[in-house]
C-alpha cells in the first residue's frame, strides 16, 4: 500500500504540523530533508533560532542569486542566509552547543523508530555510511523529534518494535511525526496523540510494527 499523496499528510503538511509545536523562543536544529521544511512553515508569531552544525546560530533561508555569500552554507551544503543577531563559531563550539544540551529541539529524518525511542537513521547496507552529526544531536538535545513517512518506499513500516538497522542512538526520540499522525514515545508502545485528516486508527495499527495506543487522541 502506498501512502505518499494518498492518505494522511503530505510532506509539506507534515512540516507545517510539526512547526505548530515549536515553541516561541526555541533553539532548534533541523536535519537535512523534510525536517528543513519546518523553517519555512513556522507560524508568524514565533521567533525560533536555528542552529546549523557547521557553525552558525541564527541560520536564515535561501539567498537570492545576488545574495549568495560564499562563506555561508547550511549543513546540507546549500548557500544560506543568516538572521540579525546570528553568531558564528567553530565546529568544536558548534557541537558543544549540541552535546552540552543547549538545543531545545532536534528534528531528524529516520529509517526506523522504536517505542522505547531507539532511532536508526544513518546506515543502510550499500549506501555511503555518513553519520554526520546525528549521533551528537540525539544524545545531546532536550527533545528529539522524528519527521518521516510512516512507511518506506516498499510499504514497510518505519515504526517498529525493535530497530533492525544500525542505531543512531538508544532511547533518544521523544516524539514522532509521520504522514499518518503524531506519536509520543511511551516505552513499550507508541502513544498516538493525533491522526492526520482522514486517517483511521485501524490504518495506523495495520501500518505500525509495534503497539499503538489511542487513549490520548485529541
Amino acid at each position, binding site marked *: 500500500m502506498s501512502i505518499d499523496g494518498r492518505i494522511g499528510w503530505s510532506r509539506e503538511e507534515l512540516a507545517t504540523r510539526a512547526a505548530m509545536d515549536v515553541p516561541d523562543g526555541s533553539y532548534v536544529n533541523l536535519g537535512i530533508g523534510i525536517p528543513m521544511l519546518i523553517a519555512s512553515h513556522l507560524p508568524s508569531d514565533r521567533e525560533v533560532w536555528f542552529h*546549523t*552544525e*557547521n*557553525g*552558525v546560530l541564527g541560520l536564515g533561508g535561501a539567498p537570492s542569486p545576488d545574495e549568495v*555569500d*560564499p*562563506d*555561508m*552554507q*547550511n549543513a546540507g*551544503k546549500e548557500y*544560506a542566509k*543568516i538572521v540579525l543577531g546570528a553568531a*558564528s*563559531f*567553530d*565546529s*568544536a563550539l*558548534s*557541537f558543544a552547543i*549540541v*552535546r552540552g544540551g543547549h538545543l531545545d529541539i532536534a528534528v531528524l529524518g529516520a529509517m526506523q523508530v522504536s517505542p522505547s525511542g531507539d532511532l536508526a537513521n544513518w*546506515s543502510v547496507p550499500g549506501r*555511503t*555510511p*555518513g*553519520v*554526520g*552529526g*546525528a*549521533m*551528537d544531536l540525539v*544524545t*545531546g538535545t532536550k527533545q528529539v523529534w522524528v519527521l518521516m513517512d510512516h512507511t518506506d518506499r516498499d510499504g514497510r513500516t518505519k515504526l517498529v518494535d525493535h530497530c533492525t538497522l*544500525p*542505531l*543512531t*542512538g*538508544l532511547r533518544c526520540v521523544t516524539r514522532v511525526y509521520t504522514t499518518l499522525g503524531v506519536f509520543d514515545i511511551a516505552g513499550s508502545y507508541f502513544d498516538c496523540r493525533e491522526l492526520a485528516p482522514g486517517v483511521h486508527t485501524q490504518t495506523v495499527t495495520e501500518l505500525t510494527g509495534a503497539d499503538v495506543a489511542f487513549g490520548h487522541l485529541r
Partner: protein
Amino acid sequence: MIDKLRDDVLETMSIIPSGASVAIGGFGLTGVPAMLCDALCQLDRRDLHVVSNNAGIDPTGVGRLVHEGRLRKFTGSFPSNPEFLPLLHSGQVELELVPQGTLAERLRAAGAGVRAFYTPTSAGTDLATGNYPSRYDRDGHVVEWMSPKDVRVIDGQACVLEFALATDFALVKSTRADRLGNAAFRLASRNFNVPAAMAGRVTVCEAQTIVDAGDIDPDSVHLPGIFVQYVVQSKDRRLADPVVPVA
C-alpha cells in the same frame, strides 16, 4: 622575528611527506584549503591519512585527493563522496567513521592537552561496539572492524572513551591571516579549521587575504598564531571578505 609568511606554496608543502596524517579544515564548500590540497597532488603525495569532516563534495579539496587515490585512510563523519565507497569496498582505503561532534572534540582535545574524554555520543551503537567495518579486501570482504570503545557509566549515563586525535600536519583556510599566524574567519567558513589547526603538529594556513600584524583586532582573532606554523596567500580569488579587499 617571527615571519610565518611563505611565497612558494609547493616548497612550503613539500615538508609533508607521503604517508603523513593530515587534518584538513572545511565543510562543504566553505573554508576548504583547496590550494593546499592541490599542492599535495602536484607534489604527488600518496598514502595519506586524511582527517576531515567530509570526503569532498566536488573534485576540489579533499575531493581531489580522493579522486586521485591519494588516501590510505580517511577519518571523518561524512564520507559521502560517491568516489569514496568503491575505494573503501575494494580495500584501497581504510575508514574510521566518527560522529561529527566527536571528531571536532577529538581534534580540539589533541591541541588542548586532553588525552581522552568520555561522551555519551555513539554509546551503544555499532560505532562503539566494534560492529562497524573499517577495512575490506579487494573482493569486498571485511578484514578489519573499528575497535570497540571503553564504556563507563557516569551519572547513570553510558559514555564511551574517545582519544585525542593528533595529526602530523593540518591544512586550514582562513579569511585573513598575518605574519604571526593569527587567523580570522567569516561565518560558516570557520568550522573545522580551528580544531584542525589545534590538532596538527605543523599547521599550514591558506589565507584569502594576508594582513599586517595588528590589523586583526586581538578580540577578533579566532585562531591565535601559536597554532599556525606557515601562512600562504590563497590563489582563490573569491571576494568573500567585504571588510578587507583581497590583496
